[in-house]
């Protein structure tokens, strides 16, 4: 029961935040609204008892990444309504297209065998760091190592692009 309320609450917050992200003129507000959305999503994670991810989400996304965004925006001081809004028709077209996509997918998926199934808070501890860690360093060790390549290249790239010469 309580989870029901929480679910609806978080969903509403998340959706509202997302909408604000794409509507608010000022980039800084967008960032802040995005952070709100992320928090809501983390809340969902906890409901689905993926506690570890919830924390990571807050630390990495809301913490690191969003702050990075914020820095960049400050750096370019875009923090006022600098962005001249797109041609109205383009806006409408975009909105309509996105909306249609939503409708289509939802309509396509609404009557699948998922109906019977559910995902609620029960005693499940796969989300705990212990279990995840075990899997991460046994089964998923190869991708884990590989992702280091990703980081390396990203690092090289960032330096290569970012440094003045």
């Amino acid at each position, binding site marked *: 029961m309580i989870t029901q309320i929480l679910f609806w609450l978080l969903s509403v917050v998340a959706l509202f935040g997302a909408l604000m992200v794409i509507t608010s003129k000022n980039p800084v507000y967008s960032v802040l609204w995005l952070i709100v959305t992320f928090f809501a999503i983390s809340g969902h994670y906890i409901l689905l008892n993926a506690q570890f991810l919830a924390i990571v989400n807050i630390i990495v996304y809301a913490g690191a990444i969003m702050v990075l965004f914020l820095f960049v925006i400050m750096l370019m001081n875009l923090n006022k309504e600098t962005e001249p809004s797109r041609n109205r028709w*383009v806006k409408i077209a975009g909105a309509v*297209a996105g909306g249609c996509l939503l409708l*289509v997918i939802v*309509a*396509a998926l609404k009557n699948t065998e998922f109906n019977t199934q559910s995902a609620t808070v029960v005693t499940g501890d796969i989300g705990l760091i212990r279990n995840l860690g075990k899997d991460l360093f046994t089964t998923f060790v190869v991708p884990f190592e590989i992702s280091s390549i990703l980081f390396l290249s990203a690092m090289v790239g960032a330096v290569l692009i970012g440094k003045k010469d």
Partner: protein
Amino acid sequence: MKNALQLAYLVPLFPLLGFLINGLGRKSLSKSLIGVIGSGMILASFVVSVWIFLQVKDGNSYVAEYFNFIHVGSLNIPFAFQIDQLSSLFLLIITGVGFLIHVYSTSYMHEEPAEHFGRYFAYLNLFVFSMLLLVMGANYVIMFIGWEGVGLCSYLLIGFWFKKTEYNKAANKAFIMNRIGDLAFLIAIFWIIGKTGGVSYHDVFAFASSTGNSFSTAELTGITMLLFIGATGKSAQIPLYTWLPDAMAGPTPVSALIHAATMVTAGIYMIARSNILYTLAPVTLNVIAIVGLATALLAATIAIKQNDIKKVLAYSTVSQLGYMFLALGTGAYGAAVFHVMTHAFFKALLFLGSGSVIHAMGGEQDIRKMGGLAKYMKITNLTFLLGCIAISGIPGFSGFFSKDEILAAAFGKSPLMYGIGLFTALLTAFYMFRLYATTFRGSFRGTHEQEHHLHESPAAITFPLIVLAVLSVIAGYIGLPEFMVHGAHKFNDFLSPIFAGSREIIESRGMMHEISHSTEWILTGVSSLLIIIVVIGAWRKFSARPELGEPTGFGKVLANKWYVDEIYDRAIVQPINRFAGFLNNFVERLVIDGLVNGVGRLVNYSGRQLRWLQSGQVGSYVLLMVLGILIVFVIQFFLRK
């Protein structure tokens, strides 16, 4: 002593040699040598032909196969010669007259430079060769080879003086009109091959006359009609006759040989050769008779008003050929061939005579500028006169006998035909004597130095004249009609084996219309009388005051040959030309090529249009992607089942 027949191949071989020698050596050889070779070769083959003739007279005939010309599957076309009465007769005419004309040419063409002199004789020999091929061939394909060969030679000789554009045009006209006929001939050959699987006369005629698996009448009519169309081309009948008068552009001896004596009679030869087929196709025979008669009349009317000496003769040739076809149409094949022979003599004579006149007049051909030549050139005058008498059919001369036979046959078919035929004969007599009188009688009307130059031609020219004159006087006596002297028609007896098949059929079908001797006497009498009257009339009229002014009224129409050439030009030539132009300038350029290039342009265009999708805007790119996704989803989930 069969070997003469086995030597038949020599007959065409000599002219061929002559052609090669003169053709290749025309630069190196001297004129006299060229002349000797040219005439000598023909003489040689004439001798052989005489020899062969003697053999054939005893009733031998012979088919010599030399090699496989075409042999494909079941179709076998050998290169073979057939020597029988008909062909041997034509051999004599061709080589005989041919020889005389060669001799004549040696003097007539003497002004030509050596090279062209050689070329001339080469052509002439080549012509004789092809003509011999035509008559000796033992099947239709060989005949066709000769057929087109003579066409080629006539083309070359008409355009002999190739610097004159109108001469070349005349040559083209001749060749092309012949081609029209040739196409019909070819189709007939295809048809025959399709039916009989062969083309040799023997097989075809056997197949035709065999009962059971044979031609249907319709097929026969078709084939014979096609062959006849071929003949109209070669023998200058309606509607394909207009090339012959223009063909007078060639040197006069050529006109004598090709366009009077030999080539133009090829059509008659062909029909006489295939007489069985024609006898079996009465419809065609009627058509032939009508066309022949019409041609005879038309040409005669035109001839009345011509002033070019050679043109007159040309139209008279057409008219005489018409006579021959009339004879064929009435089934009197013998008479036709008979007339071919006599005509060969006197028409050659007349042409050569006119040549002599032209020679003397220094190239002048308009009779209005002549007159009174009799006292300048005795032999020419005399021989020409004899020729006119012969062609007019005055009793006792060769023309009389042959023409009379034809008229009789025509009467047998229908009195109307006889009437028209007779009328034509009268016209013939009229224009011939108009020609003679205007040319040789009266006073000279040419320029002064022309008169100064007037002289009798050299022996090389007069000799042939004399020979031909003699022939055209006496030739008739080998064909005395039945009603005069019984069994004196040596000519028909000689040819009878050729037409035996037809005669049987005719008799069996009771299509024989015998006319009583008395009737014939009457007819002959009437015709002769009328002709003589006309002759005298014409003689007096034109020797006294020849018509020198431009013709008026109906005469104008005749002088302009009924405007046939103009009509052809307007009705056929120009439309085709314009249509071709339309195709060339519009259809080809715009429609078809336009379509092709259009495709290319379309590709280019759509390329240019598609580029606008590539707007460079991330937003629109993503939008297009999303739209793509949308479409796929919609179709996949809601439409595609």
